[in-house]
């Protein structure tokens, strides 16, 4: 079972106060979850301004609808669903972006890869994927969503989710393996 960075326990008292509209309690919830929320939004839509906007809208929706939270599942799961829904809705609204060609991407990130190493390699490769592929690989591999859940999010079938995941992983593998010696993911780790 994947443990997501969202998995933060929230005490019942804070939740009850926030339900009553106590803004201090809402702030506490925001501070606890702002980073995982921003991370998911940013991984799905790799633009800081857009991710910030997604988070703000998602938190406002969360606090407005808090009275509807039944408490039969962990709060973090409910909040994460709202953030993910806002992020998916945001990528649907935007015109289709064309994934960056590998050669282009590689040339532009070479020095950055040298500087930062593994994380930058992987991060840059992830950023080159198309919006839907990026969202699917992140939600499946990091957030632990299953294909049925992803299909429901996109209003598509499970095979859509499986195909896109497989395509996204292959593309990422290709991008990471194509790094020249001294800059690859594995040599960065070994070196």
């Amino acid at each position: 079972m994947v443990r997501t960075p969202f998995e933060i326990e929230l005490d019942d008292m804070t939740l009850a106060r926030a339900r009553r509209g106590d803004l201090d309690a809402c702030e506490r919830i925001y501070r606890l979850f702002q980073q995982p929320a921003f991370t998911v939004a940013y991984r799905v839509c790799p633009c800081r301004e857009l991710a910030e906007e997604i988070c703000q809208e998602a938190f406002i929706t969360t606090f407005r609808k808090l009275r509807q939270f039944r408490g039969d599942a962990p709060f973090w799961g409910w909040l994460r669903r709202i953030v993910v829904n806002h992020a998916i809705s945001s990528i649907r609204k935007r015109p289709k972006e064309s994934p960056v060609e590998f050669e282009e991407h590689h040339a532009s990130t070479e020095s950055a890869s040298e500087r930062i190493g593994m994380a930058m390699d992987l991060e840059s490769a992830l950023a080159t994927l198309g919006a839907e592929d990026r969202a699917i690989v992140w939600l499946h591999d990091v957030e632990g969503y299953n294909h049925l859940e992803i299909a429901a999010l996109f209003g598509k079938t499970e095979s859509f989710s499986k195909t896109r995941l497989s395509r996204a992983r292959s593309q990422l593998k290709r991008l990471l393996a194509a790094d020249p010696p001294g800059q690859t993911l594995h040599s960065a780790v070994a070196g």
Partner: protein
Amino acid sequence: MQKETDPLNLGTLPAVAPPNDGWPAIRAGLEKQQRNRRWSRYSLSTLAAAAVVTLAVGLYLHQPVPDTAAPPPALDSLIALSQQLETRVRTYRSEIGALPMESLVYQVELEDLIAQVDEELSANPDSAELWSRRVNLMLDLSGLYQNKLRRDYSRMASL
């Protein structure tokens, strides 16, 4: 070690901190919405009562022989108006899409209030006061979309 569920180790990527503190904007939005809710609750009953009285008087003056067995005409008019507004909001939604963030809190709040009225209406479907309240809320919701259209139009006109 690579996991089956995360073969590329995407989970090792660092968490990303938001560039700015988003709380002040969220708090301002929530405070505005709370003020709006207080105002709505206070004024809605007054507006509803006024609307019902106006409609009832108007319809009474135009209908010299009221049929006491049938539901009051004011109620039918309110239900029809509510349906018309429902259609109008649906059209706006499909044409305009999502509202900007500053309107989002109002939209969510208005939809919450409409849901509350609908719940009350399911127990008391012939309440003119409830239908009147629903009409007022639908008018407010429709107004949000009209404002957005007006802003978009002004922006295009200024180009």
